[in-house]
């Protein structure tokens, strides 16, 4: 069983009953090309390339390419249910796959929010029915309707398939509720994934507090909106010992707080959205709404601190913060455009620029998108590409020129500055690199990267 999408951008094949060999591919930590044989969706052998003669099985030539375990996205939005004019599980899970992800944690800020088993089952069902496509894992809404008042049925939601609970971008204002939520979640060893933002400070803002917002007359979000909230989360974590993952850190001062909390032995991890490692508030000049992000792009110093934090290990992981939108969401004066960037179609070429700016090598970087998220999800980490294991990996061509056409992105949203500006104008190196092949949950998907 196989199929090709209407724009001829990818071709998907079921692995059930099939034998397939990916030849000449480079694995992490090994400079010798390998042949990976996949039988019935599982890796049956990994051999030095060419040492075993393939007997009449289908081969895919991957010489010069790298294979990595399927990445895990710690924060994304598929917009389903309820916001399907912006995207859906079918489109976004395929787009995620093209970015190297095979597992995607989805924000609970759907309509309705992910606060009932019915919604979890709907998402799971839709995800299972996508041919290929990254596995979509819904996060539980920590409170009913994300209203910050009444706790969701966390134990029930965990049993239904939500390994993590989150408040999306809606802070819990009532400290008693937040304290209680942490205690309750920790009873079931359920990690919380929370974004540090104050419920009042900067709540009407749409840009980092600084000279750029002052000149543009935009309402602002000060760094203190993040650090005040973060300090509160850290203190409550210290008291409740809940496993706490701080989602999408944006400032140098926030990183200092997290560094201290980790040094004190608290069970805290954190991530950064990929775009925050590249973009800063200066890019908003001229009211460019493609840079409107709920977690604002801050100063050049903050960006440098985020890059340093990634290489030093204060930042544990990188997420996409993928937020696809319909075109109308961006057709308004800047403050009333809907915030968020669609990340997936440009994710891999951006990721491949991180070694140059952080000093981390690519293998170490890929671990931050696999091992750490796997720990948070309570999955077994390890190499992920091993004999006997399910085929759950992707093949990366680092050198192919990335030429995304905004009119035919795989994501339903093309709301990204790179759809409007060329890389050089954004102080980026030329965009290179693409996932050419991905194995996920019994499917092989080949991406036509030159189409």
């Amino acid at each position, binding site marked *: 069983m196989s199929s090709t999408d209407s724009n001829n951008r990818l071709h998907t094949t079921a692995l059930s009953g099939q034998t397939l060999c990916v030849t000449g591919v480079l694995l992490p930590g090994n400079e010798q090309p390998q042949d990976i044989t996949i039988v019935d969706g599982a890796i049956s052998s990994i051999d030095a390339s060419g040492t075993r003669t393939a007997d009449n099985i289908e081969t895919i030539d991957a010489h010069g390419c790298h294979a990595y375990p399927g990445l895990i996205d710690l924060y994304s939005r598929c917009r389903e249910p309820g916001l399907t004019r912006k995207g859906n599980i079918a489109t976004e899970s395929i787009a995620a796959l093209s970015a190297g992800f095979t597992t995607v944690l989805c924000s609970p800020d759907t309509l309705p929010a992910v606060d009932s088993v019915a919604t979890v089952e709907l998402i799971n069902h839709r995800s299972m029915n996508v041919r290929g496509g990254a596995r979509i894992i819904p996060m539980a809404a920590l409170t009913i309707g994300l209203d910050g008042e009444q706790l969701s049925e966390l134990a029930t939601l965990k049993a239904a398939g939500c390994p993590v609970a989150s408040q999306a971008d809606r802070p819990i204002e009532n400290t008693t509720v937040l304290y209680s939520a942490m205690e309750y979640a920790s009873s079931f060893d359920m990690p919380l994934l929370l974004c540090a933002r104050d419920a009042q400070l900067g709540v009407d803002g749409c840009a980092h*507090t*600084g*000279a750029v*917002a*002052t*000149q*543009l*007359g*935009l*309402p*602002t979000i*000060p760094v203190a909106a993040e650090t005040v909230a973060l300090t509160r989360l850290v203190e409550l974590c210290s008291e409740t010992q809940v496993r706490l993952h701080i989602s999408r850190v944006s400032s140098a001062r926030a990183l200092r707080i997290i560094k201290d909390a980790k040094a004190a032995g608290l069970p805290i991890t954190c991530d950064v959205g990929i775009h925050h490692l590249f973009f800063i508030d*200066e*890019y*908003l*000049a*001229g*009211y*460019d709404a493609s840079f409107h992000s709920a977690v604002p792009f801050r100063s050049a110093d903050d960006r440098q601190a985020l890059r340093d934090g990634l290489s030093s290990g204060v930042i544990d992981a990188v997420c996409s913060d993928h937020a696809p939108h319909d075109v*109308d969401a961006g*057709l*308004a*004066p*800047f*403050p*009333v455009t809907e915030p968020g960037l669609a990340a997936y179609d440009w994710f891999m070429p951006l990721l491949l620029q991180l070694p140059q700016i952080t000093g981390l090598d690519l293998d170490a970087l890929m671990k931050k998108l696999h091992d750490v998220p796997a720990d948070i999800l309570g999955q077994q980490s390890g190499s992920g590409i091993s004999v006997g294991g399910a085929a759950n990996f992707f093949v990366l061509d680092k050198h192919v020129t990335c030429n995304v056409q905004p009119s035919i992105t795989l994501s339903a949203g093309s709301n990204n500055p790179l759809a409007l*500006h060329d890389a050089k*104008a*954004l*102080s980026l190196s030329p965009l290179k690199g693409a996932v050419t092949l991905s194995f996920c949950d019994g499917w092989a998907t080949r991406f036509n990267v030159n189409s």
Partner: protein
Amino acid sequence: MSLPDPQFNAAGTLQHFIDLQGLDADTLTRILDTAEGFTGINDRKIKQVPLLRGKTVANLFFENSTRTRTAFELAAKRLSADILNIDLVTSSTSKGESLLDTLRVLESLQCDMFIVRHADSGAAHFIARHVAPHINIINGGDGQHSHPTQGMLDVFTIRRHKGDFSNLCVVIIGDIKHSRVARSDIAALTILGAGEVRVVGPKTLMPSDVESMNVKVFSSLDTALKGADVIISLRLQKERMKNATVPSSGEFYRTYGLSPQRLALAKPDALVMHPGPTNRGVEIAGSVADGAQSVILEQVTYGIAVRMAVMSIIMGNSDAMSASRISNNTTTTDAQL
């Protein structure tokens, strides 16, 4: 990197008038000189010139305004344009129509120029980027960002009284943070080379990194007023008392109100200005607003000449552009957007 300035057309001339930032001293001076020529029109028997005859100007006010709208209306009429006043505060937007849809409908009314006021910063930029190429946009105030014709009429008033800008010390008092007038005044004065621009107010009313706009920041009004040639008092909105920005209008007057005693700290010939409407006894004493140094009502009068200048220059550029388009027989219209 940033998006291109939407004010300029392909020929590099001003197609829209949205933001003083990005304009040069020559452009501003040309507007002031043109406005100078229009000031005499009030003394004529027939207060009209035919520069915009046959053109239709639409006032699109998405936010309430009486003064600015009236001044634009009068300016358009004196230029012999037809003027439409479209009240958008209570109509389309409240019915859920998007700004872009509203714009398309108004384009279909075959107007030549839109005067736009909107509560969101950046609204005029947005409209200029999306409007049909034959329409000119003049920003009548967008959120907290810009009110360029107010900025121009303020520097016009100052030039009339003081001549040269280079030796002037201008003090702007009060709510700088939320004021589009302050931002446009600062821009206009800086571009025209004013000697020193000071801003003064409590930190709650001062935007972050305001020094980046080439101003000196003061928190004491008494200190700021020393040596001032021009004093611009800004309106304090009543809602500032609600969200813990300022404790009360009484305290504001005691600390930042322009009283006769404080005015005496400035140079004896200092001008007193205010964009209106004034809150007497809040940001300015009634006796100062009505006093000999006040030019507040002159500002209103000059506002008409300045807006006539802006409208005629913009429309002139646009007509020249259309003429060249026809003569070159090019088909650049759609491609420009």
